């Protein structure tokens, strides 16, 4: 898993590359939480363009981030998830709390 973070206004844009499962979830959690806490940001935008696989452990990690971010009034958004990832999102009903966009700029414009 490769994680990179960028800041645009009050949004942390985190690019997630590789596979998000139970094995990599800890790294994802630590990285996102650290960057949310140590930067002047409110919202979390996850760029999933290069996320090739995710399962329900990933859903658990996303819900965990959602709880933290929304507790301080922020939003969690995802961009460009592939079909496999999108099917796991659908099954778990997570689109109800985390909205998906086809591009980073569309997500930013929607805040």
């Amino acid at each position, binding site marked *: 898993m490769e994680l990179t973070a960028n800041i645009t206004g009050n949004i942390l844009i985190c690019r997630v590359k590789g*596979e998000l*499962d*139970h*094995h990599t*979830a800890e790294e994802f*959690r630590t990285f996102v939480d650290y960057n949310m806490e140590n930067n002047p940001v409110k919202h979390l935008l996850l760029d999933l363009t290069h996320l090739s*696989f995710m*399962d*329900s*452990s990933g*859903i*658990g*990690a996303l*819900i*965990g981030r959602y709880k933290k971010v929304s507790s301080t009034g922020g939003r969690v958004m995802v961009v460009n998830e592939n*079909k*496999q990832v999108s*099917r*796991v999102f659908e*099954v*778990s009903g997570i689109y109800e709390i985390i909205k998906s966009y086809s591009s980073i700029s569309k997500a930013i414009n929607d805040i």
Partner: protein
Amino acid sequence: MNAKNYMVLIIPSKSQNEAFARVATAAFAAQLDPTIEELADIKTAVSEAVTNSIIHGYEDSEGEITIKCRMDEYGVEIEIRDEGKGIQDVEQARQPLYTSKPELERSGMGFTVMETFMDEVEVYSEKEKGTVILMRKKFASLAKEQGVSGNEG
């Protein structure tokens, strides 16, 4: 020829093997020429079952997970077995959102994902003995060969 093919894969319950388990199972199933989506479904379901054996079955100890994959006329049958702590109430465990480990940020959606992505999911479990997940997936390409989908032109 394919019909009788099978594989048995044994791995220790290390989280690093989750990716290997799903890749190996998908590579085996690929012999039947499934669609990309069918293959992704198998990967996801195997990932769920193997992860459960690691987190819930063996918890902090280490044990072995056995993955069996058999081909039949319609697709594959996948069995994932651990000798871990077992499930007390299988019906409850299969409920969407139910998890015994919310402190680990589990979503409780593992069984729901398996049931959605596979055609059949059976769960056999005994307290302190272990758990067996038996899943089946039919492939569209084989349904055609069997003539199940009727006329083809």
